[in-house]
């Protein structure tokens, strides 16, 4: 299984410094995209699989941008920019037409339009403004606020939060619109103890247009009618990020905590384009709590120990809700999409390092590191899925049983030898 995206870019950027406290950037860029959405081929001659290849997609993206960063004497820095982008989905390509007044599906294909080489299939364009301001309250504290809009013309089609071989790239086109994001951010930054400690708190809010969602039961992989499986949806995300960093001394490191929310709403025109009764629901990437602590302690000139601790809320998941019988078959009906969550993820990694020759001018430098990944052997869940099983009393005569997949669910030691010359 393969899916790829290749691009060739040409960029021209000019800097102009009208004053010592002002910097202007002007530029243009052009990118040629070549999408290969999917290719499936047998691994060897013993496989029954037939080779199938989805049609290649071509697109051109051109943009012009202008940005200005201006530092005022009062300790205020203002940056503003404007980008105008134009995206062309190009032939050769086949584009399906669908019956009007009906949801896109394989049943409602009415025609197939052929676009020749170099023909423009669809054009998108728009302004992407951004503005930011930084106010230095003192030498050790500042406030930042910003707004920016960005458009994304390429899409990763995936029904999993994890990287999977079934993921594929798609270009915006007749039915898949560019994703537009408006982001607002506000942050306060303060250092303590002669900058030994750096702290910050940031708030953000993002609003998405044309976020891609998937119809119930969407069949994504190697589907030549992929547009029939997708919904152009709305989304919003918000959060607060706390960060503290210790930059000097024997003990260094940082700790970051994020409280956030990532929601999507699919309220299409047709019933199959409505998910969870058109209400906002968590995306696959929603992690309300996310904590990372990374520490490094210098025991002596040659010995140091490090540790990382990660914790985050389990990602949303859709699970069976009820069982029922129809046509003498045992079936399951699922919960609302992403109604449940996987178990929380947490993990501790520890390592101890020994530096070899530490003479400053020595050409050959080396170090040994003994580390243990997942020290307490937490079986963090990567995926939950169901399989058909033999109905027995032990599983309450269920035909389908849920299983969890854990990767590296036990302490995993490793030794590293690093060298530089």
């Amino acid at each position, binding site marked *: 299984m393969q899916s790829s995206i290749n691009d060739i870019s040409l960029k021209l950027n000019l800097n102009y410094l009208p004053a010592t406290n002002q910097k202007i950037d002007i530029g243009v860029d052009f990118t040629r995209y070549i999408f290969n959405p999917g290719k499936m081929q047998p691994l060897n001659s013993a496989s029954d699989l037939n080779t199938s290849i989805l049609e290649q997609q071509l697109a051109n993206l051109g943009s012009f941008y202008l940005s200005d960063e201006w530092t005022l004497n009062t300790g205020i820095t203002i940056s503003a920019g404007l980008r105008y982008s134009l995206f062309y989905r190009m032939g050769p390509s086949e584009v399906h037409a669908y019956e009007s007044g009906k949801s896109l599906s394989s*049943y409602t294909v009415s025609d197939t339009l052929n676009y020749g080489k170099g023909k423009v299939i669809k054009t998108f364009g728009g302004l992407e403004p951004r503005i930011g301001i930084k106010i230095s309250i003192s030498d050790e504290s500042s406030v930042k606020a910003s707004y920016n809009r960005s458009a994304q013309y390429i899409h990763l089609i995936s*029904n*999993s939060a*994890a990287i*999977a*071989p079934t993921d594929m790239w798609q270009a915006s086109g007749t039915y898949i619109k560019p994703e537009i994001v408006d982001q607002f951010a506000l942050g306060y930054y303060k250092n303590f103890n002669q900058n030994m400690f750096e702290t910050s708190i940031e708030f953000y809010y993002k609003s998405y247009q044309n976020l891609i969602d998937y119809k*119930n*039961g969407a*069949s*994504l992989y190697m589907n030549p009618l992929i547009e029939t499986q997708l919904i152009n949806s709305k989304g919003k995300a918000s959060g607060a990020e706390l960060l503290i960093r210790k930059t000097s001394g024997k003990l260094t490191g940082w700790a970051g905590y994020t409280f956030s929310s990532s929601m999507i709403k699919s309220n299409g025109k047709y019933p199959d384009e409505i998910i969870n*009764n058109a209400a906002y629901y968590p995306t*696959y990437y929603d992690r309300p709590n996310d904590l990372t602590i990374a520490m490094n302690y210098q025991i002596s000139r040659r010995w140091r120990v490090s540790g990382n601790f990660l914790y985050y809320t389990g990602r949303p*998941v859709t*699970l069976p*809700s*009820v*069982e*029922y*019988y*129809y*046509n*003498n*078959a045992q*079936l*399951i*009906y*699922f*919960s609302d*999409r992403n109604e*449940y969550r996987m178990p929380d993820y947490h993990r501790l990694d520890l390592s101890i390092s020994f530096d070899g020759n530490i003479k400053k001018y020595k050409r050959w430098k080396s170090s040994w*590191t003994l*580390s243990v*990944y997942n020290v307490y052997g937490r079986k963090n869940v990567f*995926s*939950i*899925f*169901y*399989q*058909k*099983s*033999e109905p027995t009393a*032990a599983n*309450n005569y*269920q035909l*389908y*049983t*849920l*299983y*969890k*997949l*854990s*990767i*590296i*669910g036990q302490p*995993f030691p490793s*030794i*590293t*030898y690093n*060298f*530089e010359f």
Partner: protein
Amino acid sequence: LKVSLKYSIFSGFIGIIIIFLQSCIEPYDPGISTKSDIIVFDGSVTNDTAPSYVYIQHSIPYGSSGNAVNESGALVEIRDDLGNAFSLNEVQPGRYASNYNGFQAKTGRSYSLHVITKAGKEYRTDPVLMQDVSDIDSLYVLPKISESLKTNLEGQNSLYTDAGYELYSNVKGNSANGSYYKFDASMTLQYTVIYDLGLSKVFSYCWLNKPLTYPFVITETHTLQNDAFNGLPINFYSGTLPTEELITNLVKDPKSMRISSQGWISRVRIYSISQDYYAYLNRLSNQIDAQDKLFDPAIDKVAGNVYNVTDRTETTLGYFSVSAVKRKSIYLYLGTSLLECKILPFTPPLVPDGYTIDSPPLNWIKP
């Protein structure tokens, strides 16, 4: 020049592979505590002379050990587009049937289901047109080795192979007919038993009904040039006889017995179905096939076509279908594999639906 090599990349990668293969999948109990109680309709109207049935029960929470609750005491009617209403009687708890002579559906007419539950909730479907159905042109079998994965409670898979026969159908129809089809079949194993009661020996024919291998067999021809298709798999006949099931059907206390399998009797039925019902069954099939996918298969919430009249947002499950039906039978002769069996309590032998002959058909076919 600055070069840095980190051997941990290699050793770590090898370690990940070993762990991944050894122990990574375990049963998972999410502790679902849903109180959902969803009403389930399983009903159909055909142009057959046999009664039409509607079975109404309730879902049970996933993972619970309880049985589904039947919806008893409901008023159930089938209505046609001429304004006629035909009541169905509750013949078993939650199972409603039309009278033998009181209702005969016809192609070209539309039918809908109307239900008022004991609690006063009113459900119905939109009218569905009964479209004509093509004949089954022929049925045939070919040898096939079926492979399937079976999962134990620890999540380990084992590959099972079964050398048997696959039943296929060919259908040639008129392109004016409906182009969405559903198949089902009665699968009956006929076998003979000779048992010794001491004073006499008795020879008897017995039958064992088996479910279909594939829960939903559907096809569509609307993308084809004509309303025809060939080689649609209907069912797989296992080459392994269900010995334990056979002996549970035998008389009590024989001195000894011998069982000879005769063969399979299959009555295949083809139904014309609506595009909506085809899509519904297709989604159910995809849901069943979606199992065993590690990367979060796209979940489908397959709701039914029966809706609450006063609350269209209420979810219902199952389907009320309207179909014309035609049949064709096939007899698959297996030979005379002999089975020696132990003695078990008596259970009357099962007789296939509508099948009364007590000797093997003349047209047994050898695969």
